C-alpha cells in the first residue's frame, strides 16, 4: 500500500491518486462477468463517441482560431478606416474654418481691424503662431522591475501643470504639448493611465514647446520647477531636457465649444 509511504493520510492524497487511479481494479475472479455482445457493442459505441469528441474538440480549437484572427483584423481595419475618416473630416473642418476666417477678414474691411483680430486670436490660442522659444521634453523614468511596486518615475498630469504654469509665469505667449496648443480653457488631466490635453491623448516623452521672450529656455532651466524635475531625475529616473528653439510653429487650438452662449440667428 503506497499510502503509508508518505505518512499522514492527508499528505498522500496525490500519492493515492498516483498509485490507485483506477475504476478498473480487477474484480475478484468469481465476480468477473462474461463479455456479452451487447456489452461489446456498448463499449464500441462509447469509443466511437470518444473519437468523435476528440475530433470535434480538435475542430473547435483549430477552426475557431482563424475566426478569432479575422474578427481582430476586421476591428483593426475598422479602427484604421475610422481614423482616416476622422483625419479627412478634420482637414475639411480646417479648410472650412480658413474659408470662414477669410470671408470674415474681407467683411471687416479695414486692415488694422483684421490685424488686431489676428493678434487677439493668436493670443487666445486660436491661430497658429511662429516664433522663438523653448522646448522642454520630459519623459517617464524606467518601469520598476517588480510589477507590483508603484511606478514612481511616472509623469502625472500635475507635473505637466507645473511645467506649463512655470512657462506661462516666465512670460511664454503660446504653449503646445505634443502639438496640442493650450488655450485659457485647455484641460490637462489624467484619464486612467493616459494624460489628455483637451481630450487628445499625449504620451511620454512629453514635448512641451513654448514661444516666449528671449532666454525662456535659460530661465526655465534655472527655475525651481526644473530643479525639482532634476531632483526627480536623480531619484526616480525622470528625464528632463530643456533647449532653446528658433522659428517653431505652434498650431491653432480648436475653438472652444459654447456652453452658455448660443449663436444669434
Amino acid at each position, binding site marked *: 500500500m503506497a499510502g503509508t509511504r508518505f505518512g499522514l493520510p492527508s499528505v498522500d492524497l496525490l500519492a493515492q491518486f498516483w498509485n490507485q487511479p483506477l475504476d*478498473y481494479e480487477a474484480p475478484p475472479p468469481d465476480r468477473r462477468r462474461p463479455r456479452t455482445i451487447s456489452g461489446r457493442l456498448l463499449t464500441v459505441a462509447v*469509443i466511437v463517441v470518444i473519437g468523435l469528441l476528440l475530433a470535434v474538440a480538435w475542430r473547435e480549437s483549430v477552426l475557431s482560431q482563424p475566426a478569432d484572427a479575422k474578427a481582430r483584423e476586421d476591428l483593426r481595419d475598422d479602427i484604421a478606416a475610422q481614423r482616416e475618416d476622422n483625419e479627412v473630416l478634420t482637414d475639411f473642418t480646417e479648410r472650412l474654418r480658413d474659408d470662414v476666417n477669410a470671408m470674415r477678414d474681407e467683411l471687416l474691411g479695414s486692415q488694422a481691424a483684421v490685424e488686431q483680430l489676428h493678434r487677439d486670436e493668436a493670443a487666445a490660442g486660436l491661430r497658429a503662431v511662429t516664433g522663438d522659444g523653448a522646448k522642454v521634453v520630459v519623459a517617464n523614468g524606467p518601469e520598476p522591475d517588480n510589477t507590483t511596486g508603484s511606478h514612481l518615475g511616472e509623469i502625472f498630469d500635475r507635473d505637466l501643470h507645473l511645467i506649463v504654469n512655470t512657462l506661462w509665469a516666465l512670460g511664454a505667449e503660446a504653449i503646445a504639448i505634443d502639438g496640442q496648443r493650450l488655450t485659457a480653457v485647455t484641460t490637462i488631466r489624467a484619464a486612467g493611465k493616459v494624460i489628455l490635453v483637451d481630450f487628445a491623448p499625449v504620451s511620454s516623452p512629453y514635448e512641451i514647446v513654448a514661444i516666449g521672450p528671449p532666454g525662456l529656455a535659460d530661465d526655465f532651466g534655472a527655475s525651481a520647477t526644473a530643479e525639482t524635475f532634476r531632483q526627480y531625475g536623480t531619484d526616480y529616473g525622470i528625464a528632463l531636457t530643456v533647449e532653446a528653439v528658433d522659428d517653431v510653429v505652434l498650431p491653432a487650438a480648436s475653438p472652444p465649444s459654447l456652453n452658455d452662449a448660443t449663436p444669434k440667428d
Partner: protein
Amino acid sequence: MIIAVIALAVGVVMGVLVDINVPVGLQPYLPIAVVAALDALFGGVRAHLDGAFDDKQFTISFISNVLVAGLIVYLGDQLGVGAQLSTGVVVVLGIRIFSNAAAIRRRLFSA
C-alpha cells in the same frame, strides 16, 4: 483491441467529416469532456492489459466521469470559481491519465 482502435478511428473520421456545431453554452465543457474521454480511454487500455476490462464498468465510468466533471465545472461557474474547478478537474484527470499511461508502459515494455 483492434475493434476498439477501429471504433476510435471511425469516431475521429466522423467528427472530422461531419460538421458538428457545439452549442455556445456547451463550449466551456468541451475541454473537460475531452480530458475525461482521454482518461476513460487510457483507463480502458490499462484494464484491458490487466485482463480486467469490463464493458459495463467502462461505459458507466466514462459517462459518469464526463457528467461529474461537467457538473463540477457547471457548479463552479455558478459559484464564480469555474476556472479554478476546471483546473482541479483537469489536474485530477491528468494525474489519472499519467499514471494509467505509466501502468500501460510498464505492462507493454516491462520498464
